[in-house]
Structures are given as C-alpha cells and as structure tokens.
C-alpha cells in the first residue's frame, strides 16, 4: 500500500478512526484461528456507509485488499489479513435499531454482539435462536458472514434461517439491499441467502433484518453420563430416529469434561467417557413428555446417571460450561486446532470411531465435543505450534478425518466457514464445478478481487483443472 493511499484512507475516515502503528498491526493480525496470522498495512473504523463506499472505491483504484472484521472470534481465519490489506473493523456499528414485536423482527447493525441481542429480545418475550459458543463476544455481522450455527441448531437451525434482509456495500462501492421484513419474498434471485455465508468476500454488511420467534414457555436441561463413547453416540441416533427434537443435543468426551471442570466446577463427573447435554423446550406438557421419552432412551443405551438441572441458574451454568469447551481445552496444551467436520447424523458413531483411529494412527491427542444432534463434531487437536513435528502430525490427522468425513457423505465444515484454514479441502468436498462457479460469481461481483481475497478458495492458478480466465485472477 502506498503512502498516498494511506493518506487518502485517513482523509476518508478521519485520523481518529485510522490506525497503523506496529502494535495495532500485530493486534489485528489474528482472529481465534490457531496458527494463521498476518499483519495488515492499516486498520480503520468506518463511521458511515459513505465512508465504506469510498474506501472500497479507493481499494479498486489503488489496488489494495480489504478485510472486513467483527470481534475477531472466527475459527477458519476469515478475518485474518492477507498481503497489502486494510482491515475494516465493524465493532462500533453496535446499535440495535429496532425490535419489532408486531412483525417479530429485529433490525440491527452488524457490530451488535449476539448475546446482547439475545438478552434484549428476551426482555420482550422473544428469542433469536442461533447460539454460537462465542455468543457473548461475537458480532451478528460475523455470524451472518459465516452462517454461524451453535448449540440450538438441531431444533432451530442456523443463522441463515433467521436472516430476512440485509444491506451491504458491494466491492465497487455501490450499496445493495436484499430482502426486508417479509416472511415471503421471491422477487428475483435469492441474493439475501447468498450473502449469508459469503465470508466477507462479496460485500461489507451494514444492516441486517432478523427473524425472531416467541420464547419457549419452558425449558428443561439435563446431563447424561456414559461409560462408553459408543453408547452416547447410539443414544443420539435413537433420539433422532424416535422423532424427538431436543433444542440441544451436545456431546463432550472425557478430555473435554476434565478441562471444563478445571475451569467451571460445574460438577460434571471426571471419570466418565462421555456426557450428553440435552435441552428440551416448548409447552409444559410437551417438555415433560419429551424428557421422559429421552430419559428412557438414555437409560436403555447405557447412561449410568441422568442429572436434571434443578433451576435456571444451574441450566445456565451447564450451558456456559459447554460453551467454554473449546477454550478450556487450551489448559492441556497451548495450541488447540479446532475442526468442524460434519456428517449425516446417522453416521455419527462411525465418525467418532474414525477420530479415535486418527488419534491413534498419528499419535496426536484430541479433545472431542460438538453438536451431536447435528452430526457436527469439533475434534480439537491439542498440540503446540512451537513444535513443527507435532503440527505436521496434526495436519495429517485432519487430512485423514476430512477424507473419512467426505466418504461418509459429510462435509469439511459445518459452521465455522472455509476461510483460510479449510480452503485446500474445498474442491474435494464440493467438487470442481461448484468451486469454479463460486470463483465466477466472486469475480463478476469483485472484478479486481479486492474484498477478502484468498479466502474460501484461491484465485491463483491450480496445477490441474481450469486455468485462470483473466490477469486479475492471478492474485492472492
């Protein structure tokens, strides 16, 4: 980035919204993804749509890259800078513009913290269901950009199921609006759903309209303890096939349980092999009926104890403990590489076996937890990035896991996104025609490839397959 480009950026956003000290570059070189990091050239905090638009236009003229960023809690490296880039931080866009209790919608700016929105809507008897583990720190904008999932995915779905409309600034600096408060809207291509999960490669989101639902009348939270991993997996499969849909059906293995206990003292038994955290919600009678059915299934499949949360406080603590799982695993080793392999739910027991096999074969340690009800596991490799040999083994183990997941009809990422961390596996997972289509879409919207380039897929030429179509494609 040239000095004159930096001066122009400064004059667009104002000196107080511009940072380029070495310290600041370091502090925006990472997100929550292990190992990956890269320093940007500068960081800005835009104040208006107009400023964002001008920055994007300037980026096209001066040929620098733009990296949109929320709280920086992503797990696939989506907000990690690339060469010659400017980070655009949206955390100060944190107003909840409106909660409309006639239409059950919320209109928010992208920097709103997900947990804050959940608390505000709850005050009005409404629920915003997507519930990523980092809800207390992550932003809605980041959730939309990555189509974030979370603990309630099984019954309520993920972020895309709740986005009714969005506004964004396109790479050429023009604003675009898609969708609105309408529950039904088929005017033209479904661009709204296309924005969801675009990982900041198609535009900078500036406003989001979300769908809300009434808060469930009652919730019941329980823990089931197992002596065998396979018993817990069998229980999950049976709950699903019995046509019961809990709002949460979460799995934790022994390593994870112990790390969580070190942190929270939630009173989980340290010596059992697996725990299922289950929550059912809805009308009183249904909650009672479903929890009885679930209890029977759990007992039949070898749960040796079932703990029911006695009050809301205890239930909150158990869920909090589950949300801390990923970070708590860092108590064991300093680097935790968290993956996101997802398989059709019936294949869950097979997938768990494959992960155990990978750990044995490559001599690495995994902590396992995840959204069992969604078939979405988070095998987390406990390692140390200062030891190259260990990291190599970890990568081999993940190659193996991804391959096995794909063989089982699964995917490489369920909810964290492709970003930098998984782009090398994308073609294998979705096939060359799909990746080519993605690239064509990307380049037709972002002709100079300035917006979050090098994420999801590379636009550099590959050894095999199609050659790049224009000179612009041969860039990071």
């Amino acid at each position, binding site marked *: 980035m040239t000095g004159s480009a930096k001066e122009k950026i400064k004059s667009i956003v104002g000196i107080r919204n511009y940072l380029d*000290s070495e310290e600041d570059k*370091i*502090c925006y070189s*990472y997100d929550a993804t292990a190992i990956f990091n890269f320093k940007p050239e500068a960081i800005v905090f835009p104040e208006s749509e107009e400023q964002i638009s001008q920055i994007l236009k300037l980026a096209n003229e001066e040929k620098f890259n733009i990296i949109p960023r929320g709280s920086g809690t992503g797990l696939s490296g989506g907000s990690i800078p690339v060469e010659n880039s400017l980070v655009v931080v949206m955390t100060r866009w944190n107003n909840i513009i409106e909660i409309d209790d006639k239409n059950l919608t919320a209109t928010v700016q992208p920097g709103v913290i997900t947990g804050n929105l959940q608390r505000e809507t709850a005050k009005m008897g409404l629920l915003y269901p997507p519930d990523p583990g980092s809800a207390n720190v992550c932003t809605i904008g980041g959730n939309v950009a990555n189509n974030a999932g979370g603990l309630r995915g099984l019954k309520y779905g993920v972020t895309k199921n709740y986005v009714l409309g969005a506004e964004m600034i396109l790479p050429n600096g023009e604003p675009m609006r898609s969708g609105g408060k309408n529950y039904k809207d088929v005017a033209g291509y479904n661009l709204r759903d296309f924005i969801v999960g675009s990982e900041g490669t198609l535009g900078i989101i500036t406003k989001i309209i979300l769908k809300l639902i009434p808060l469930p009348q009652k919730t019941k939270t329980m823990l089931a303890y197992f002596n065998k991993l396979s018993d817990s997996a069998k229980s999950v499969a049976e709950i699903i096939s019995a046509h019961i849909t809990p709002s949460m059906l979460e799995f934790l293995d022994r390593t994870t349980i112990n790390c969580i206990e070190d942190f929270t003292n939630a009173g989980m038994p340290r010596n059992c092999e697996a725990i299922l955290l289950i929550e059912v919600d809805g009308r009183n009678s249904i909650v009672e009926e479903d929890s009885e059915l679930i209890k029977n299934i759990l007992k039949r499949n070898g749960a040796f104890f079932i703990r029911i949360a006695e009050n809301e406080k205890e239930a909150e603590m158990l869920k909090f403990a589950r949300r801390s799982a990923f*970070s708590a695993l860092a108590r064991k080793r300093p680097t935790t590489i968290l993956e996101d392999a997802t398989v059709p739910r019936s294949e869950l027991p097979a997938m768990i076996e494959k992960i155990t096999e990978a750990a044995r074969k490559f001599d690495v340690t995994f902590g396992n937890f995840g959204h069992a009800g969604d078939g979405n596991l988070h095998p987390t490799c406990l390692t140390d990035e*200062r030891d190259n040999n260990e990291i190599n083994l970890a990568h081999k183990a993940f190659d193996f896991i991804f391959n096995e997941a794909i063989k089982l009809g699964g995917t490489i990422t369920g909810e964290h996104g492709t970003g930098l961390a998984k782009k090398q596996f994308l073609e294998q997972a979705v096939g060359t025609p799909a990746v080519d289509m993605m690239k064509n879409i990307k380049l037709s919207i972002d002709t100079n490839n300035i917006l979050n380039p090098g994420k999801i897929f590379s636009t550099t030429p590959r050894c095999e397959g199609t050659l790049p179509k224009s000179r612009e494609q041969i860039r990071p």
Partner: protein
Amino acid sequence: MSKDSGKRTLFEALPGDDILSQCIHCGMCLATCPTYEITKLERSSPRGRIRLSKKIADGEISISKTFADEMNFCLDCQACETACPAGVKYGLIVESARALIENYNYEKVWKRIFKKIVLKFVVAHRINIKIAARLLRVYQKSRLRKRLHSSGLFKKNFPKLSEMDLLSPDVSPIFSDEYLNEKIQPKSEVKYKVALLTGCLMSIMFDEINRDTVDVLSAVGCEVIIPKGQVCCGSLNGHNGDIETAKELARKNIDEFSKFDYEFLIINSSGCGAFMKEYGRILEDDNDYCEKAKTFSLKVRDVMEFLAEINLKDKFKIIDEKITYHDACHLVHSQKIFSEPRKILKSLPGVELKELDESSWCCGSAGIYNLTHYDDSMFLLQRKMMKIKETNANAVLAGNHGCIAQLKYGTKKFNVDVEVIHPISLLKRCLNDQ
C-alpha cells in the same frame, strides 16, 4: 517444554513462553474487559496485550510508548482471568510487563513522580504513611481547602486536581492501630486464634472498619492478634511495577506475623488479601523466605471467606435493610470469592439482598488508577453508580477500601442516594449484643 527459550534472554522480567503462549486468542475475554469496552481496540484487550507482550518477549518488537500506555491503561481488575476458560495468568503478565516498562520512562513526569512518592516513600514506610495522613488531615480540615473550593479558583486552574481532592476520603482523626491492642480476647471462650492485617489505608482512612472487624471476630469467639510491627502488604508496589519494594514489605510482614501463633490471618481489604495470598509465588526465588512465604500465604483468609466457614447461627438480630453487593475485583477475580459473602448476607435476618447487575465489573478505583487515569475511572464509576441506582437498595456493600472510597465519591458526583459500607460493618450492626 519451550524449545526456543534461548532467544528470550533480553526480557527475563516477562513470564516464560509457556505462560505467554497459553492464550489461544479466542476472544472470550473481550466481553469482560472494561478497557476494551471503553476503546473497542484490540490493543486495549487482554488478548491484544498478551500478544504484544509475547512479541516483545520474542524480540520481534521493542517496548514503545503505545505498549507502555496500554499496560498502564489496564485496570489489572483480572475480570479476564475469571472469564478465561484456558486459565491464562493475565495478571502475572501485565504486572511483569509493568515492571519492565518502569525502566523506560514513558509515563508523564507528574505521574512518575507521584507514583514514586506514593510507592517508594509513603506506603513503604509505616511512619511516613502516618505523617502523610496527618498532613492530609490538617489540609482536609483547613479553611484553605474550603476557600480553594468555594472560590472556584482550584476548579478553574486545576480541574482534575480539584476533583481528586474531593475524591480522597477523609483521614480518620485517630488511626486504628493507635487504639487497638496487640491482643484482644473474646468475651466468650476462645474458639479461633486469628491475626488481623490492619492495612495502611484501612487504618488511616477507615479505622472504623478495622474496629468493626475486631468486634465481629470477637463476638464469634476469636482471639484477635494485631502485630504492631506489621507493614503495608506491598500490593500497590507489586501492581505498579515496583516488585522489589513489594518483596521487601512481604519479608517484613512474614517476620512480624511469625512472632505470633495464629491459625488464620484475617484481611478485610481484598487488594491486600489477594496480594498476601501470592507471597508464596512472589518470594519463590528467595531461598530464605520461599518456604516461610508459602506457609504464610496458606493461612490468609478474607474476613468474609473466614466467616462463611464457621457457624454464625444466632449471632445476629433482625434489622430491616435493603442492600446490594459490589464484587471487589481482588475478591471475585483474584481470590474467586463470590458466593461466600452472599451466603452470609442472605442469612442475616431481615436483610434483603438485591443482586447488582454487572456486580463484578470494576468500579474504576483499581489501586491508584482513579488518580492516574481519572477520566476512564469516572466512566466506569458512572456506569457502576447507575447500576446501583437501579437496585433501589439503601446500602451498597464492598469488601475493599479502594472500592468504598470510590463508590462514596460516586454517590456525591453522580448524585445517588445510597450508603456505602463494608460488609463487616453491616454484620457489626446486626450483632446480637450491640
């Protein structure tokens, strides 16, 4: 474990690579960090500060004014340690980084001189604390002070200094160690033998809290020992980069207290308690004191922590009071004491405890932070006072003298009608035989 320890010879003051590398930058700390809340900048966040410390330890960047400013901007409230699932020892990192930047003179001259006077000359010597306190009291009671404020000259010429003058709590006419005996017997039989740290500020500014502590401890059957030779715990020095003076004070206290036989060392200031529980770690390199310090630290108890462990049945009468409780950072985050005071307060007959929203957010006092970072401190204080107001409580309780002084100031500055007291003073009021 760390293979590359060879390259970190330069900054041995910083903790080892294993501690600096433990942060996985997941960001769970962001939601609890008051300074990140103020600026929304990564460098004002715990994970940002850890990353910068690591880069300095690795020799990739050098210490700069930006780094020094951020480290001093941190309140050291350690809310991030409570929030950190990975168990990163952030307090250790920030305090050692502060010791490191002390050599670089980045702070404003007046702040440096002020810190030096307070840390090296005042708190480090018992007699100087008293002299300073007496002088302050003479000034506080003088016509000069009234004139300065009523004329408006003070406010006009030195707006911040004038605010700070109003912020400082009144010095007690007589200090608690001047009227409390070295050994105080309970009225009933002796059930516990405890020592009491009277503290420097507690003794000169809030002597009544020490008196209340002694009264409550006596009433529950404690023989209370108050060694005359005890000195400041050293926490102010330790938290502000002057580790050497802190160690000296720690050694002196270990010597003085070891002259007596006691089961627990009771402390009614959370900052002092948190620091004295750390003596074992602070002196781990000191061959002569290492073991003594560990034993010493094991006996340290916050007064509410101690009382929660013993039987208090039938000790208290019914009083009608609606209270709320503010968690002092050094109680809830450093010592993880959260449920103990609540258990006691809820057991008091007639007392209604209203939970305070954001109770474990720092009030902005943070040692001498309200003097060195007045504006940021006031931002946090205002937020705290508004939350207190929402509870409609008659009294707010806090287990640290710093919080008490700050909150008292907050009641005046932000016009909130609430009494600020130490939990032990409420217990004293509830005692049956009073």
